[in-house]
């Protein structure tokens, strides 16, 4: 039995691996919640598709490996099997993977096109804000309520930081810029990621399918404070969004007289409305 230790050992860890993947969702070692955008759902589906294919391959290869090892250790023959391989097998295991891989890659293309190719963006994608990444925060510029987002700053634009409010239920886009180095606009729950490249303005569209608060992080090393770039996308209904812009406008035009001073607590409303 001792000479079987190692085959068992090499069998044992793949089992652990599989198990860990099986229990992972239960242990909350999985995606940060279900995909909160239609595109995200497609991405998840692709992920699960690949996961299945990969899992099968993984199990298959390791079973094979374990089997040949097992057989190998108690190979009582005086000599090993003298073989230089099999042409047909080679053909077989070249064609099969090729087919699968080809399938996977072609199957993905349309999702990619939808996400990145401008002509394939969904109907009615409207730009809501300009997000400028800088070390180490997200500076956000909205058009004044009822206005369109201009490419250059306007005198009545509204500014805020780290807190991007958008209407949910329809595709919206942002103009993604970087003020200094390369950053990446990453919404884990929405499965959106796009680098902010210095010197370029990149339109990024996404659609929050439910109202709520989604984390916004930076996913491209941007310096010592890379981890500090904590922002959020706050998806709310149209009226709530309008309401927000108006509050922001009021706050921003505050002249110290005409209305009660916004104390810290009230600023926080924009920041912390409902984070229990």
């Amino acid at each position, binding site marked *: 039995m001792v000479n079987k230790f190692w085959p068992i050992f090499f069998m044992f860890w793949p089992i652990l691996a599989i198990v860990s993947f099986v229990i992972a969702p239960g242990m909350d070692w999985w995606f940060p919640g279900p995909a909160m955008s239609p595109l995200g759902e497609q991405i998840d589906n692709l992920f699960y598709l690949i996961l299945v294919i990969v899992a099968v391959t993984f199990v298959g290869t390791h079973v094979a490996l374990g089997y040949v090892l097992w057989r190998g250790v108690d190979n009582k023959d005086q000599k090993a099997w003298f073989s230089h391989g099999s042409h047909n097998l080679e053909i077989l295991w070249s064609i099969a993977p090729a087919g699968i891989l080809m399938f996977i890659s072609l199957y993905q293309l349309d999702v990619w096109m939808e996400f990145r190719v401008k002509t394939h963006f969904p109907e009615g994608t409207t730009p809501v804000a300009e997000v400028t990444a800088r070390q180490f925060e997200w500076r956000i510029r909205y058009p004044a309520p009822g206005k369109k987002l201009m490419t250059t700053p306007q*005198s009545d634009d509204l*500014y805020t930081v780290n807190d991007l409010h958008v209407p949910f239920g329809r595709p919206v886009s942002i103009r993604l810029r970087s003020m200094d180095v390369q950053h990446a606009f990453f919404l884990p729950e929405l499965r959106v990621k796009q680098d902010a490249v210095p010197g370029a303005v990149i339109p990024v569209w996404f659609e929050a399918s439910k109202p709520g608060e989604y984390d916004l992080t930076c996913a491209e090393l941007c310096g010592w404070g890379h981890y500090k770039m*904590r922002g959020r996308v706050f998806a709310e209904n149209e009226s709530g969004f309008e309401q927000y812009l108006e509050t922001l406008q009021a706050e921003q*035009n*505050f*002249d110290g007289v005409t209305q009660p001073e916004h104390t810290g607590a009230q*600023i926080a409303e924009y920041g912390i409305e409902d984070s229990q």
Partner: protein
Amino acid sequence: MNRSICIILFCAALPLVGCESGRAPSFQLSEQSQELSGFAKEKVQGELEAGFGTPSNLVVWSELDVDFGQYSGTVKKVGPRPGTLKIEGEGLAVASSLAGVRSLNDLKGAAVVVSSPSSVTESNDESSGEDGADASDARTSELADTSSGEGESESYRVASYDPASRLLSVVNENGVPAQLSVAKGDNVQILGPALQEGRNLYLRHCMHCHGVSGDGAGPTAQYFKVKPRDYRQGVVKFTSTKANVPRPSRDDLFRIVKLGVPGTYMPSFMLLPDEEVHAIVEYVRWLAMRGEMERKLNAWLSLDYSKEAVADMEEPAEEIESAFAEAWADEASDNITQFSEELQMDWQEADKEENVVVPPTERVPPSPESIERGRKLFQGNKAKCASCHGLTGKGNGPSTESFNDLPGQPGVKSDKAGLFDIWGNIVKPRNLTAGVFRGGRRPIDIYRRIHSGIKGTPMQAFGSTLNKEGEIWDVVNYVLSIPFENKQGGH
């Protein structure tokens, strides 16, 4: 043989996984204190440690009459386990006028004072009153008692507190569950929760730039073009307070932490929960007070007992030292009391309603006329904004080129031309065409900067100069219009 080898190798490798070195963050003495001669430096350090403690053992100092939050409750029953108390009613209640201390949870290690009802009833009544000052007066006087061990009161430290079960477990100074000499109905108080949580958050979020001692010289700061604020003079640039009120209000600090300072490395902490930001604000104020205390002690001692002063006295060293000892014995007590009064007064001033700059009139609508008037004032001889900010507001006025005098040191010239702030850094007058406003872009923010200047910088208070109706508003309107001057046509 192999066995032994691998054991040896394993031991050799242990350092790799060696446990924490046990080192803890520590406050550093300021440059001036370093200039003091040994014996004086000792005293200063001792005074600061006694009054403020170390980052890992903060001291709420009764001489420093500031509210750092307080939780209090009444003992329902002692036990079940040794060192645990059950708190009556809702559990620990906030007994403090301080905004930010509600629902702080990180109480571990905070000081607990358990005292018999008689000695504390009145302080409870008062601290529930609106006026924070009175409440804290009562409390601190009582703290003084507890510290000096009078009255039947005991100090422990929090091990844990569970709001749900209202079970508070405490340990004594040595960290072992305390043998409580506590009776039902005794009053329980947890001191300075805001300060403590603030310290934890500060060490995590702020220390790398602003430094453990708040000297703006954290390890990361060395790379910045725009240096982090050094709190130790108690001065911050962007305040809502009047020109003659030197300190920022709590709200000012809160805004800065929440919104960040565009155009600098100060990021926005918008998404930190309010309580945490409040706690950070409290800790920053406390650090500033510590720095000021050090500064005041220096101002007093450095004249006679700085290294160079001692060097050019003819008396022998021990004579000077004994002279110092006398002087210290004679004056320290009064001075320190006075210093702490001064700085509390400064910080209390800052939080008073009447010291916030409120424009007499509401904003003049940004009409072309108003903007034109603003331009005249900006460029004209009355305010002469242009001499620093330049005729077109690019921040390149003649003063930035022609002078290199360091502030507060007459005759001392810098090798670089420019304007300097009190921290010795060159400050560029803001380039107003960029549309980046560090102290906030609301009209009121800009109004206040014009009205009472930017503290610590050559940007002066124009409140008394632009005193005619709406003059400041005109300038504000002009300043806000500068970034768009050339784009107005297309708009």
